[in-house]
């Protein structure tokens, strides 16, 4: 479904992503692991259209989308949850969700139904639906941005470090959520630093180091790899 080949992303002279190739089949949950600065988020943001690719190609369902703008990727069914969460803090929880369904704004019945579903899946959001999103806790904001991404009924979900800065119990909740989403058939590309949590839900994994893929395999293979620590820390 998603094919990345020879991707390069640069910030000026700094090459954050040197040569990344990966694939993501429909219904798979693939996780991109690696230490800080390995280039995982840059890869994800490039797929989302938020960062330009310096070289290489990205194909979504066989269509070339390497230099597509974020709006175009969203319309193609790509939903992104960035590392920075990026709730719209002045908008209410409800308004955030409404905006998540922007690409489906003409289907008001469908949107209303999905809103109900999100509130069922995330009861805390229902409680706080009229509060400005900025008043939510970190874990609640993470739930909000995942729910907001789901409002567009995406074909593929890009998740960037959902566990970042969250307490372990909340992290467990989030990953349960992710497992549920995967079970419903959603295709997910998950960037994570928390390797054990990510490998527990993933089908396959790639490990990045210094902008390149250092290892790839099934989740079981990567979990068993003894040099995982070396890959992380030596980078």
């Amino acid at each position, binding site marked *: 479904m998603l094919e990345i080949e020879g991707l390069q992303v640069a910030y000026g002279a700094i090459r954050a992503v040197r040569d990344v190739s990966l694939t993501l089949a429909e219904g798979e949950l693939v996780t991109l692991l690696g230490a800080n600065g390995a280039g995982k988020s840059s890869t994800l943001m490039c797929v*989302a*259209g*938020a960062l330009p690719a310096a070289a290489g190609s990205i194909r979504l369902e066989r269509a070339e989308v390497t230099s597509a*703008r*974020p*709006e175009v*990727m*969203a*319309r193609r069914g790509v939903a*992104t949850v*960035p590392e920075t969460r*990026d709730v*719209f*803090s*002045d*908008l209410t929880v409800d*308004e955030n969700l*409404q*905006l*998540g369904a*922007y*690409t489906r*704004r003409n289907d008001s019945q469908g949107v209303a139904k999905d809103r109900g579903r999100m509130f069922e899946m995330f009861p805390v959001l229902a409680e706080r639906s009229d509060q400005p999103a*900025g008043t939510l806790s970190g874990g609640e904001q993470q739930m909000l941005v995942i729910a*907001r991404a789901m409002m*567009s009924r995406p074909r593929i979900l890009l998740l960037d470090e959902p566990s970042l800065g969250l307490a372990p119990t909340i992290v467990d909740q989030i990953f349960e959520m992710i497992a549920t989403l995967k079970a419903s058939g959603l295709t997910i590309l998950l960037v994570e630093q928390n390797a054990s949590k990510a490998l527990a839900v993933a089908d396959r994994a790639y490990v990045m180091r210094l902008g390149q893929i250092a290892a790839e395999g099934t989740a079981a293979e990567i979990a068993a790899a003894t040099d995982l620590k070396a890959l992380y820390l030596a980078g």
Partner: protein
Amino acid sequence: MIDVLSLGGAYALMALGLVIVYGILRLVNFAYGELIMVAGYSMYLVSGSGLPWLVMAAIAVLMAILAGIATDYVAFRPVRAKSVTAVLITSFAFSTLLQNAALLFISPRPRNVPLPKIFSETVQFAGVITPARNLITIAAAVLLLALFSWLMRRSVLGIAMRAAATNFTMARMLGVPANLIISSAFAISGLLAGVVSMLWIGRIGAVVPGIGLEPLLIAFIATVIGGMRSLQGAVLGGFLLAFMDTTLNFTLPQDLLKFRDAFTFSLVILILLWRPQGLIKGPASGERT
């Protein structure tokens, strides 16, 4: 009191027109004053047509809206991604271009603008005698502010614009089309400028190429004291500025009256020393688009 409300309403609309573009783009549209000028001159140009005043005014406002959108295409879009300084210069250049166009193709001398008779009539309201124009300004301001508030809060476009003002890239990742949002902001800016123009020129009766300068300055100052990223701040700033101006008008001794602006600006400086970010905090500062 009515004076303050009427002037405040006009100032608030001016400030809002400026802030709506600044909030989303983080860029000041220096050609904003010229939108007011365009509306004024459009009014002058159609004045011979014999149409009813409201129709002429509607045409003038429409021209301001178009000029607003044109400002985006001419001065902002080509350089937006390149550099902040470039945009400042291009919008300033566009402003000069428009002013000189009016100067060359129409006239450097003031041109009379038709006003409805009702503007100069006086009425008695709540025990005070005041020009009807003031009441109309208040009504127009209230109406527009209410409309604007509804737009921002209840319509998809408004919510998308508020989101874009907070985090433009994230909004785009949800599918919000960047260009549409920006054009809408400029169009609304033009609408507000157009209406303000009709009310502002109503006080003067004539239009000159430089007519946009004072409203631009007022809008800028009102926005700065109110909070540059906040829509409510712009409105508050407008009313506050009007209050300061009117109060000084009444309280300053005769020989100091010509220094009224100096007093106003001194008060502005004091406000900014106390609250440099303005009175109302806007959305968390995001990246420039």
